[in-house]
């Protein structure tokens, strides 16, 4: 008999933004087993982004404990973040930004390479491979600011994959994509999740894009988890509550 290993665990977690008194997420309990793919949905300001930033330790928890593969995020944040590929929400840069797409993708692996070590040929090959997966290899030497919103979004996904993460946290990864990519990228993420065993947590408001590939949905509202389970059941609960 084999037991699935816990990848992400949140125990009674509340997070408060600096200068605010009301927690953005409160008393959240959530467990993701290794190699699970979970979608998080909910209305605006329901705490979805805060949940992702709490998991990778970018926001300090006010209460409770967060661990990733058994490592406490508050005390071992750097080690945890080396294992997490993160794509932030609506990330767009100005046209004059002095970085190429390849620079940005390479950066994804810098934390894992470690201080004082220089990126080697394998790191460069891995970055190009991530770009190839997303069909943006041809854009490698173009300035990031000159790419369209969808292309920039793909660069950010490739950046998250470069470090060969064990966990993927994606915040609205399909938001700026063209219709063709909107079909293609969710399938690619599902494939990566299956082939490379990535534990994946995706925040999205595009419910239709996930139904094909997803077995578990978490619904959030007002900073709390409203429902957690199979898509039809969880989304049904969201529908009745709203």
């Amino acid at each position, binding site marked *: 008999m084999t037991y699935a290993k816990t990848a992400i665990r949140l125990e009674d977690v509340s997070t408060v933004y*600096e*200068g605010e008194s009301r927690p953005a997420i409160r008393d959240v309990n959530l467990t993701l087993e290794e190699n699970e793919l979970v979608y998080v949905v909910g209305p605006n300001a329901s705490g979805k982004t805060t949940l992702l930033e709490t998991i*990778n330790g*970018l926001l300090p928890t006010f209460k409770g404990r967060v661990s990733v593969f058994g490592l406490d995020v508050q005390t071992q944040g*750097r*080690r945890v*973040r*080396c294992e*997490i590929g*993160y794509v*932030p929400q609506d*990330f767009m840069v*100005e*046209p*004059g*930004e*002095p*970085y*190429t797409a390849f*620079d*940005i993708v390479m*950066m*994804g*692996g*810098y*934390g*894992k*390479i470690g*201080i*004082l070590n*220089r*990126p080697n040929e394998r790191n460069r090959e891995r970055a190009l491979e991530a770009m190839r997966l997303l069909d943006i290899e041809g854009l490698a030497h173009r*300035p990031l*600011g000159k790419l369209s919103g969808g292309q920039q979004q793909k660069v950010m996904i490739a950046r998250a994959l470069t*470090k060969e993460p064990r966990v993927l946290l994606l915040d609205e990864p399909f938001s700026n994509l063209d219709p063709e990519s909107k079909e293609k990228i969710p399938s690619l993420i599902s494939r990566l999740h299956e082939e490379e065993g990535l534990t994946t947590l995706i925040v999205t408001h595009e419910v239709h894009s996930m139904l094909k590939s997803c077995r578990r949905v978490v619904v959030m509202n007002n900073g709390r988890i409203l429902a957690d389970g199979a898509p039809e059941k969880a989304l049904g609960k969201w529908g009745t509550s709203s």
Partner: protein
Amino acid sequence: MIWLELDIMRRALLGCVLAGFLTGLMGVFVVRMRLSAIGYSMSHGAFAGAALGVATSANPLVTAMFFASATAFLIGPIADKARLHVDTITSIIFPLNMALAFVFLTLTPEIGLTSQVASVLWGSIISLTNSDVVYLVTLCAATVSVIHFVWKELFSIMFNRKLAEADGISTKPFIYLIIFLSGIVVTLSLKLVGGLLIYALLFNPASSALQFLEDMRKIIIASPLIGVATNLSGLMVSLYLDLPVGSCIVLVSTIIFTIAVLLSPKRRRKMENDKNRYCAA
């Protein structure tokens, strides 16, 4: 040229080249990491410290370095403790340092506006000593080495601090490193343009390079070169027109920045984009 044979001029030229290189180099990090407010508070901290050194007959270089570093390192923790924005704290500390500088200078009336005081206020490149040049050379070597070793982390933080943190880079020590190095660079460059104008040397070359270039690796090379060219041109203008060196350097650097903005392809592209967006709407 006869004046090149003078030791004083050789030191002045070397000082211009080294300080221009260092301020141009550090300026890129200060501008890209949005530490400008800390930068100018720190330069005025160095000014206040040097004034204290003059007033108490201590070594102005040491007191300037102490004040610059203290200013830089206090701003963050004070803002955190008081739950105020860094901008608010810098807006308070900036005039405080200026006020302290003038208090220190007037506490000892016998000093008055002596050449030592004037050199703190407006710089005095002819007072550069051989030791000053040695310090600048050492600092150049140390700064370039440090940046070489942690380049990938700085490169990433300059793009986006939050993403760098998300990738597993502890950004705080690198930010402190840049603040610390900038503090020393500002202090050692005080004799060139003085405490009132030094921050122009930190920001103008980097801001000019950023107008033209679209590759951070080129910017990190171009900005120090602009810094060197600015300082040398400022020195020449000052010798030719018999005006203060520091003021001439800042005037030249402002002219270079203005030309860079006017000719900037990036700015033109941005204007076109805004126009297209407006038309589409």
